[in-house]
C-alpha cells in the first residue's frame, strides 16, 4: 500500500490511504473525472489484494446512476464490490467510457479469485458516505472515501 508520505511530493499519487480507527479510508486523485473514478477503484481493490497478482482475463461492463458525483462514487465502488462478493471477481483494470454527474459506464477487467494465487488482505463490507467528497482543486480531481471493514 502507498504511504502517507507521498502526500508531500510534487506529483500527487493516484491514491493514498488515510487513518481511521475502525475502518479504512483513502483519497484518490485524477486529472479528469474518468481517471479519478478509475484510480479510486484501484485503491479499493488494493485494500483487498495486491493488484499485481490480478490478471485481466474477465471483462464486464458496469453502469451506475446516482444523484451527483459523490453518490456516484459510492455507487460505482459498491457495484465493483458486489461483483467481487457475488462472483468472486477481483478487478484491476478500469476504463471509464462515459461519465456525467449522475451516470457512469465503464469496462472493467480482472479475474476470479484463486486462493492459490490471491492472498486476500482483508474483507470490505461496504463503501460509506461518511466524510465523503468528490471535488476539483486547481484542475485536479480528488475524492475521499471511507470503507467499512
Amino acid at each position: 500500500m502507498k504511504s502517507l508520505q507521498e502526500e508531500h511530493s510534487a506529483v500527487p499519487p493516484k491514491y493514498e490511504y488515510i487513518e481511521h480507527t475502525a475502518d479504512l479510508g483513502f483519497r484518490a486523485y485524477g486529472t479528469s473525472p474518468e481517471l479519478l473514478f478509475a484510480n479510486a477503484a484501484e485503491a479499493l481493490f488494493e485494500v483487498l489484494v495486491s493488484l499485481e497478482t490480478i490478471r485481466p482475463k474477465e471483462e464486464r461492463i458496469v453502469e451506475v446512476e446516482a444523484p451527483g458525483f459523490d453518490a456516484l462514487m459510492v455507487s460505482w465502488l459498491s457495484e465493483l464490490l458486489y461483483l467481487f462478493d457475488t462472483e468472486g471477481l477481483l478487478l484491476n483494470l478500469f476504463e471509464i467510457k462515459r461519465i456525467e454527474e449522475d451516470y457512469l459506464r465503464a469496462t472493467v477487467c480482472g479475474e476470479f479469485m484463486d486462493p492459490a494465487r490471491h492472498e486476500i488482505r482483508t474483507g470490505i463490507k461496504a463503501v460509506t458516505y461518511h466524510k465523503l467528497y468528490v471535488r476539483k482543486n486547481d484542475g485536479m480531481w480528488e475524492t475521499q472515501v471511507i470503507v467499512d471493514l
Partner: protein
Amino acid sequence: MPRDIAVEKLDDFRWLIPKTGKMRTQGLVYTDETMLATIKKDASLEQVANVACLPGIVGRSMAMPDIHWGYGFPIGGVAAFDMENGIVSPGGVGYDINCGVRLLCSRLDAGDIKDHIPGLVNALFRNIPCGVGSRRKDLKLSARQMNDVLVKGAKWTVSCGYGSAKDLDHIEEGGCIMGANPEHVSERALNRGKNQLGTLGSGNHFVEVGFVEEIYDETVAEALSLHKGQVTVIVHTGSRGLGHQVCDDYIKLMLKASGKYKIDLPDRQLCCAPLSSKESSQYLAAMACAANFAFCNRQLIAYWVQETIQDVLQMGPGELGLSLVYDVCHNMAKIETHEVDGRQKQLCVHRKGATRAFPPQSPFIPQDYKEVGQPVLIPGDMGRYSYVLVGTDTAMKETFGSTCHGAGRLLSRHQAKKVAKGRAIVRELEDKGIYVRSAGKGTLAEEIPEAYKDVSSVVNVVHNAGIGKKVARLKPLGVIKG
C-alpha cells in the same frame, strides 16, 4: 483534526457533552479519565454530538466506554427515538446488522482439552468457513429456504436439526425478530447472502475456545451454569453480505427520504426517515430479515463447532455437554418500551456496537435467568480475555437497558500492521498458550492485542457505573479468525 468537543465530568465514569448548536439533547459518555484522553483524539465525540441533532431523540445521545470513531454514529453509540416524532437510521445500526456474540459452555475442564488445542483449532478452521469467499459446500439454500431463514431466524435453523429448541430461549428475541418481510430485501442482498449462510466472514469475527478463568459473582455464575476452569466457546459474527447490502440499499433510500422529510443532517451517513414513514417500515422489515439471517448464521456455526469438538475429542454430545449460555446482538434498532419521565413509552432504540443489558425480572429475558438478569457477552482481543456480565436496573433507567459490546479499537488497522511488522504474531500468542489460525494474511496483524483497548478497563467502567455487572472472565486457548 477532529472538532474540539467540550465535555463536563459528572462523576468518575460519566462525562457530559453539553447541548450546543443544533443538538436537541445532551451527550453522555461512559468512560474514565484515561480512556477519555484517547477518545478525544478521534472524531467520536463529534459523532455523539451529531446523533444528538437527530429529530425525536429521547433522553441523551449516549456512548459506551468502548466508543470509537465509526461512520455516522460512533461505534459504542446508543440513542432512542420517539415513535411519533423520531426517526430510524440504517447508519445507526451499521452495515453488519445483528453482528453479535454467543457463548457456549461445556462439561469439560480446561485440563481435559489442553493437549488437543492445535488439533481442535485446525479442525474448526477446516469445518467453519472463514475468510473472504469461503463457504460450506454442503449447505445450499433454495429460494424458499432463504425466505424461511429471513422470516423465522434461528427457529428455522433449529427446525432443520441444527441445535435444539431449548437454544431458542437463550437467544435475544428468541432468535427471531418479528415483522421481517423479505419483499423489502433486494435481489442484490439475497445474491450477496445466498452463499454466506454459515460463514464467519473476515475482520474481527472469530470462534474462540477458552475457559472460565475467574468468577466475580458466584451466585450469578451458577445461574448461568458457569464455573471456574470450565471450557467455553465464543462465536462472533453477523449477517454477512446480506446485511451489508440491506444497509447499503436503505442508506440510499434514506438519503432521499431525509430530503423529502426535510431532516437536517450533520453527516450524510446519519440519513434517516421518520418512524411513521413508509421508508422506515420498509427498512425495519428488511433489517429484521438481516437480523434473522445473522441468528441463523451463529446457530449453524455453533452446531458445527459442537460436531467438530465431538469429532476431535471422540466424545458424545452428553459427555461434551455443550450448551448455549446466551446469544446477544450488537448492531440493532429495536422497538422497545421504556420508562420516560414516569410513563411507559415505545421507543426505537439504536445500539450501534452496544449490547442490550436488561435487568433481573425483565419479561424479555429467559425464565432461568429471571433472578440474575440478561447475560451480556463482551469479547476482548484474542490475546487477553473476554467477560460475561449481566444487565442491571441502572442500565434500564439510564441507557435504555444498554451497555458496552467489546474492547474497542485503539489503533487503526494501518497502525496495527505497522506495530506488528516483522513480528511472529502466531508464535507470540502460542507462547502465551493461545493457538491461532487465520484465513486472511493481514487479519492477524490488524487484530493484534495491542490494537484494542484493554477490555478490562472498558468492563470496569460499565461495572462501576452500574450499567452492567461483572460475572466471569474467560481466557482464550484457541482462536480461528476470518
